[in-house]
C-alpha cells in the first residue's frame, strides 16, 4: 500500500514537472514568429524538451541455494534480499547547437516502506569545433566497441550488458577531442578527471583513445587505454556485413592489469573481515566473436561466444564452493551462527569480482518483430559448470506507448554458479510513455 502511495506522489510530481515543460513549450510557440532568419537568430527561443516516463516493476524470487540463502537460514535477516521493487523514472532531454542535456528523476518503492529518490544527469556536455577538431567537455556517454552480450573494448563507459530493460546509461565525466572525415574518426578522451587514482573499474581516472576506419562493408576499430592504477590496455574490433542478412563481429583486448576481487588464502575459515578483497589481476585477455542473421520475415538470430580473462577461473569457483560447504558443515554449537552466517554472506562478494561470472560464455538470442510485437528469448550458457540463464520477454510498441514484460530464470546443475546467485527468478513489467 505504501509502495502505491509513493508512486502516486511521484506521478503527481512528474505530472507537475511535465505541466511546467508544456507551459514553457507553449510560451515558446506563442512567441512572435521572426520575419527572417537573422531575426530568428537574434531572438531567444527555448529549446524543445522531450523525454519519456517509465513505470517499472520487478518481482524477485530468492534462491534457496547459494551462500546468501545459507547465511539467512543460519541467521535470518543477516543479508537483505529484495523480493520486489517498483520505480517511476522520468527522462528529460534537450539539446542545441553544440550542447546536450539529459537527466533522469527516479522514485523507487521498496518493500518495508523504503522509497529512495534520486536525480542525475545522464549527459550534460558542451561541444565546440576548433581547427578541424571537435572538443567536448562534461558528462557524456562514450560507448565504444562492437558486440552485444559483452564489450571488452567499451573502455570508457563500461556499460552493464544484458539488462532486462534497456535504459539510458549515466555518462562519465570526460574531456574529449575528436576528428572526423568521411571514413575515419580519431577520439582522445580523458575520463573521470578529479576522481581518486584508487577508484575502481569505470570510475578510475584514465586516458583512452580510439581510431575508427570504415573499409567498405567492414568497420575497424583500434583502442588504447591507460588507467591511473591499472596501466595500459590495447584492443581491436571489427564489424563486418558479410551478406544482405548476416553481420559478424569480433573484439579482442589485452590488459596489463585489471581490477578484480580475490580470496585471501591466508584467511581462516571463520574470518573477522571479508576474505574477498579488491585485487589486481595481471596480463589478462578478453575476446568475443559473434554474428546476427536476419530474415526478411523480421526474425533475427544472434550467436556470441566470449572469453573474459578477468573473471574468476573454474579453479577459483571450485575453491569457493568448497569453502561454502565447509562453512555450512561447521557444527552449530561450536561456532556462533552469526559468525558462520556473516562469512557465508561475504562469499557472495565473489559474484561481483568481474563483469562476467565465468571466463567462457556462450550467448544465443532469437527475436521476431511482427506488427508492433517483439517476442524474444535468450540464453547465456556457462560451459564450465553447465549453468544457464534464460530470459523470455515480450515487447509491444504503440505510437507513444511501449510495454514490455518478461521473466529471467537461472537454471542448470545445483552447483553451478548461476544457481548460487541470490535471485533464482526475476519477473519484470515496464510501461513507457514518450513525449
Amino acid at each position, binding site marked *: 500500500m505504501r509502495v502505491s502511495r509513493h508512486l502516486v506522489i511521484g506521478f503527481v510530481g512528474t505530472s507537475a514537472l511535465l505541466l511546467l515543460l508544456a507551459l514553457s513549450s507553449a510560451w515558446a510557440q506563442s512567441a512572435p514568429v521572426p520575419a527572417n532568419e537573422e531575426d530568428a537568430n537574434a531572438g531567444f527561443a527555448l529549446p524543445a524538451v522531450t523525454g519519456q516516463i517509465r513505470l517499472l516493476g520487478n518481482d524477485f524470487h530468492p534462491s534457496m541455494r547459494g551462500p546468501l540463502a545459507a547465511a539467512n537460514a543460519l541467521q535470518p535477516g543477516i543479508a537483505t534480499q529484495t523480493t520486489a521493487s517498483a520505480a517511476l523514472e522520468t527522462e528529460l532531454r534537450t539539446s542545441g547547437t553544440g550542447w546536450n542535456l539529459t537527466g533522469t528523476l527516479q522514485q523507487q518503492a521498496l518493500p518495508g516502506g523504503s522509497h529512495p529518490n534520486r536525480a542525475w544527469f545522464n549527459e550534460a556536455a558542451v561541444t565546440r569545433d576548433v581547427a578541424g577538431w571537435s572538443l567536448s567537455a562534461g558528462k557524456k556517454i562514450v560507448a*565504444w566497441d562492437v558486440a552485444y552480450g559483452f564489450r571488452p573494448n567499451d573502455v570508457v563507459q563500461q556499460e552493464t550488458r544484458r539488462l532486462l530493460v534497456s535504459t539510458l546509461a549515466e555518462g562519465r565525466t570526460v574531456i574529449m577531442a575528436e576528428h572526423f572525415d568521411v571514413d575515419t574518426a580519431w577520439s582522445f578522451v580523458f575520463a573521470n578527471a578529479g576522481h581518486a587514482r584508487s577508484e575502481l573499474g569505470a570510475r578510475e581516472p584514465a586516458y583512452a583513445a580510439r581510431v575508427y576506419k570504415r573499409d567498405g562493408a567492414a568497420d575497424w576499430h583500434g583502442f588504447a587505454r591507460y588507467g591511473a592504477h591499472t596501466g595500459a590496455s590495447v584492443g581491436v574490433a571489427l564489424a563486418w556485413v558479410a551478406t544482405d542478412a548476416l553481420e559478424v563481429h569480433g573484439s579482442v583486448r589485452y590488459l596489463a592489469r585489471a581490477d578484480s576481487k580475490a580470496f585471501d588464502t591466508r584467511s581462516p575459515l571463520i574470518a573477522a573481515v571479508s576474505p574477498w578483497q579488491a585485487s589486481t589481476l595481471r596480463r589478462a585477455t578478453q575476446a568475443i566473436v559473434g554474428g546476427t542473421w536476419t530474415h526478411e520475415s523480421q526474425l533475427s538470430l544472434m550467436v556470441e561466444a566470449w572469453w573474459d580473462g578477468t573473471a574468476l577461473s573454474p579453479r577459483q569457483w571450485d575453491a569457493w564452493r568448497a569453502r561454502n560447504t565447509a562453512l555450512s558443515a561447521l557444527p552449530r554449537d561450536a561456532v556462533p551462527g552469526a559468525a558462520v552466517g556473516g562469512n557465508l554472506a561475504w562469499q557472495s562478494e565473489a559474484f561481483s569480482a568481474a563483469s562476467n561470472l565465468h571466463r567462457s560464455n556462450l550467448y544465443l538470442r532469437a527475436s521476431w518483430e511482427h506488427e508492433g510485437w517483439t517476442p524474444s528469448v535468450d540464453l547465456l550458457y556457462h560451459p564450465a559448470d553447465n549453468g544457464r540463464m534464460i530470459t523470455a520477454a515480450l515487447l509491444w510498441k504503440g505510437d507513444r506507448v511501449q510495454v514490455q514484460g518478461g521473466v529471467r530464470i537461472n537454471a542448470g546443475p545445483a552447483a553451478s554458479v548461476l544457481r548460487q546467485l541470490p535471485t533464482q527468478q526475476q519477473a519484470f513489467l515496464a510501461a513507457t510513455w514518450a513525449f
Partner: protein
Amino acid sequence: MKITRSLLPLVALFALGSAQAQDASAILKASDKFRMSADNLQVETQINIVNADGTPDKERKYKVFAQQNRQSLVIMQSPSEKGQKVLMSGDDFWLVMPDSQRPLRITPMQKLLGDASTGDVSTLSWAEDYAGKLVGEEACDTRAGARPQTCLHLTLTAARKGVTYQRIELWVGKTRYEPHRADLYVLSDKLAKQASFVFDKPDAPTTVVEMVLTDKVSNNKTTRIKYVSRKERQIPKEWLNPQFLVRGGTFE
C-alpha cells in the same frame, strides 16, 4: 557471308535491346526527379500509418538528408523515436539508438525492421540502384472508376546489393515520366508493398508530395509518406561518418 547474314537479326535484336535499356534508364532518371529534385536535399517527412480498417495507427516524423552518391542520413523526430538515426552510405548502413549512443552496423535486411522501412523513407531515387527494362504500355490505374490513362510499364531489377527491394514493377506517365504506381518485391520475389504517388498538380505534375504504401505481406496497413518540405542542402562530409552521429547536439 552466310554467317554474317544470319547474325544480322541477332545484332539488330541486341541493338534494339540496348536502345530500350537506354530509354528505360533515361525514363527512370526523369521519373526520379519527381521525388529527388536536386542532387542534395533536406526533406522533412511525415509518416502516417493507417490500419486496414482506416483507423490511425502511428505517426512518425523524419528529417532526411538525401545526398548524392547514394548517401542519406535519417534523423527520427517523433517522441518515441527521438535520438534514433540511420545512416546509409552506398551499400552500407548504421543505426544509432538513443539508449546506446553507439553506431551499430546493420545489414540490408535489418533495414527493413521497424514501423516504416527506413529504406522507403530515405530512398528518393531508383535510377542508380536498378537496371530498368521497358515492358510496354498499360493502364496507369487498373482500379474501377480510375481515370483512363496509359502509362509506360518498366521492370526494375536491383543492380547492387543492399537495396530494399529486389524487383520493382513501375508505371510512369508517357509524357513527363511521373511515377504513378509501383509493385515492390523483396529478395524472395514476394510482393511486399504496393506504392502509389500523389502529385502537387494532378494535371501537370512537377513533384511527388506523397507516396502511399500498402503492405501486402501481413497486415494490409497503409503507410502515407508525406514530403512536407524539400530544400537543396549539402551536409558537411563528416555528418556521413557513423561515429559523428553520437557527438551530441542537434543536426540543424
